C-alpha cells in the first residue's frame, strides 16, 4: 500500500513543482475560451430556455479542462519517464501493476479536479450557473477524469516519442472533446452530426456533468452514467491487461 501511496505522492509532487504549466496554464486557457466565446455568442445563442450562453458554457469548459488535464497528467509523466529512463526506478520496485495503474490514474483525477475547480471558481466572475445536483457533477468529474487518466496511461505507454503522444492528443482526444457539446447542445446540430455525436463518449461526460448544474440535459444522466461507467470499465481492463503483460515497459 505504501508503494502505491508513494507513487501517487510522487506524481502529485511533480504536478505541484511545475504548477505554472500543469495547473495555472490550463485555467488561463479555459478563461480565454470563455472570454472570447461568451463575448461573441452571448447575445445570439440561448441553448436552454432562460440560461445565458456564458452560464451554459461554463460547465462544458470546466469538464473539458478536467478531461484534458487528466489525460495530460498520466500520459506526459509516463512518456517523460520513459524517454529520460527514470521509469526504471518504478519498474525495479515491488509495485504491482494494479498499484501502478491506481497511482497514475488517481494522480490524474486529482490534477483534473484541481484544474476543474480552478476554472469553475475563476469563471464565476463571468456568470454564475446554478448548482442543481452537485452529486452528479462530482460523479461525472471523477469518472470522466479517471477514464481520461486511464487513456493517458495507455497513450504514455504506447507512445515512443513526444510526436506520437501529440498525435494521440491532437487527433483523438482534442476532436472528441471539441465535438462533444462543450460549446453547444447537440440538438442544435443537423441529424447526421447529432447521430454521430451519440457515438462520442465525451458527449455523455459533458452532458451528464452539465445536468448537475442545470437539471437539464440532451440525454438522461442515468444513460450517460452507464455509458461513462462502461467506458471506464473497458479502458481499465485494457490498461491493466497492457500493464500486466509488460507491454513496452518490460522488454
Amino acid at each position, binding site marked *: 500500500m*505504501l*508503494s502505491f*501511496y*508513494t*507513487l501517487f*505522492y*510522487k506524481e502529485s*509532487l*511533480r504536478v505541484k*513543482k*511545475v504548477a505554472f504549466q500543469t495547473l495555472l496554464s490550463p485555467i488561463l486557457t479555459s478563461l480565454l475560451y470563455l472570454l472570447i466565446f461568451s463575448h461573441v455568442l452571448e447575445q445570439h445563442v440561448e441553448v436552454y430556455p432562460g440560461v445565458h450562453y456564458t452560464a451554459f458554457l461554463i460547465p462544458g469548459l470546466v469538464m473539458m479542462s478536467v478531461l484534458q488535464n487528466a489525460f495530460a497528467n498520466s500520459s506526459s509523466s509516463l512518456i517523460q*519517464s520513459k524517454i*529520460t*529512463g*527514470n521509469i*526504471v*526506478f*518504478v*519498474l*525495479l*520496485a*515491488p*509495485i*504491482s501493476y494494479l498499484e501502478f495503474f491506481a497511482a497514475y490514474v488517481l494522480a490524474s483525477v486529482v490534477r483534473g479536479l484541481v484544474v476543474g475547480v480552478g476554472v469553475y471558481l475563476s469563471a464565476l466572475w463571468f456568470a454564475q450557473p446554478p448548482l442543481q445536483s452537485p452529486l452528479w457533477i462530482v460523479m461525472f468529474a471523477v469518472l470522466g477524469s479517471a477514464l481520461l487518466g486511464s487513456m493517458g496511461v495507455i497513450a504514455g505507454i504506447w507512445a515512443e516519442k513526444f510526436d506520437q503522444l501529440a498525435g494521440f492528443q491532437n487527433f483523438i482526444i482534442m476532436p472528441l472533446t471539441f465535438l462533444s457539446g462543450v460549446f453547444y447542445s447537440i440538438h442544435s446540430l443537423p441529424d447526421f452530426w447529432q447521430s454521430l455525436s451519440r457515438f462520442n463518449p465525451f458527449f455523455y461526460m459533458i452532458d451528464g456533468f452539465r445536468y448537475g448544474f442545470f437539471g437539464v440535459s440532451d440525454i438522461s444522466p442515468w444513460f450517460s452514467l452507464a455509458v461513462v461507467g462502461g467506458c471506464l470499465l473497458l479502458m481499465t481492463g485494457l490498461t491493466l491487461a497492457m500493464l500486466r503483460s*509488460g507491454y513496452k515497459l*518490460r*522488454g
Partner: protein
Amino acid sequence: MLLAVDARQVHKHYGSLHALDGVDLRIEQGEFFGLLGPNGAGKTTLINLLAGLALPDGGQLSVLGHDVVTQYRDSRRLLGVVPQELVFDPFFSVRETLRLQSGYFGIRDNDAWIDEVMHHLDLTDKANTNMRKLSGGMKRRVLVAQALVHKPPVIVLDEPTAGVDVELRQSMWRFIQQLNRDGHTVLLTTHYLDEAEALCGRIAMLKRGQVVALDSTQNLLSSIGGCRVRLKLSGELPSILSPQLVEKIDQEYLLALPSYQALETVLAQLREAGVAVQEMKLQQPDLEDVFLKVMGH
C-alpha cells in the same frame, strides 16, 4: 542454503537475436561475483531479467529462492540494482529521490539509513540539491544510493564506475566491500578488468549469450600459466623470438613465455644475436589475458 541468484537454462530473444542462450549460473550468498563479457554478450540482459525489467522467454531465474516472474514482489525486495544508464528524475532533490525510492519499497521513515548511505557516498552536502544540478559522478552516486535504500541482501551493479573519477571509484568500492563483508551478495559487471580481478571472488564470462567460463578468480588466473616479459632492446628482436611477440612499442617488446624457465633461453638467444637488454620487466598474467584467451582473441 538458498542461492542468492539461481539461473537455470535462461533464454531471451530480441527478434532474431538470441541474447541469452541457456544461461546457467548459481551465485552463493555473500559472494562478490563478477559477470564479464564484451559488449552485446548478454550481461545487461541477464541483469534486466533478474530485476524484472525484461521477461525471460525460457528457463528459471530466482533471487534467494523467489522466482523473478511469479514472485516478483519478493524477488525485487531482495534486490538492489544500479542501472548502467545515468538516469535521474529532474523534478526532485537527492533526499526526495531517496525518500521516494524508500517508499516504493514500502519503507517509511528511512532518513537514518538514507543519511548513512549519503555519508558513505559523499552526498551529504548535496542532499537538498536538485538532481539536474549534479555532475555526472554525483548522479552516479545517487544511483548507487537508490539501489541501497532498502538494504537489499543482493546488490547488482551494472558497470557502476563507467565515467567515474578515481576518488569516487575508491570510496564507492570501500562502501560496497563493507556491505559485502556485512553479508550482502554483490553481482558486478564491469569493463574494468582490474576492478573485477581485485574485488571478485568468482567470475563468469559471457559470450554471445552463453557462459563460456565460470570459476574462482584465482583459478582463472592460474589457467593462463607462464608469464610475460617486457624488454627494451638495443636493436631489433631476433626473428627466432617472433612467435612469442605480443606487442611492440618503439624498442620495447612484450613477449609471452610458457614458463619462467623459458626466460633463460630468450636471454641466451638475444645474447647470440648481439642484442643488449637495456630494461626488463616481468609481468604476471592478469584477468585481461584470461579474458582475451576465453573470448578467443
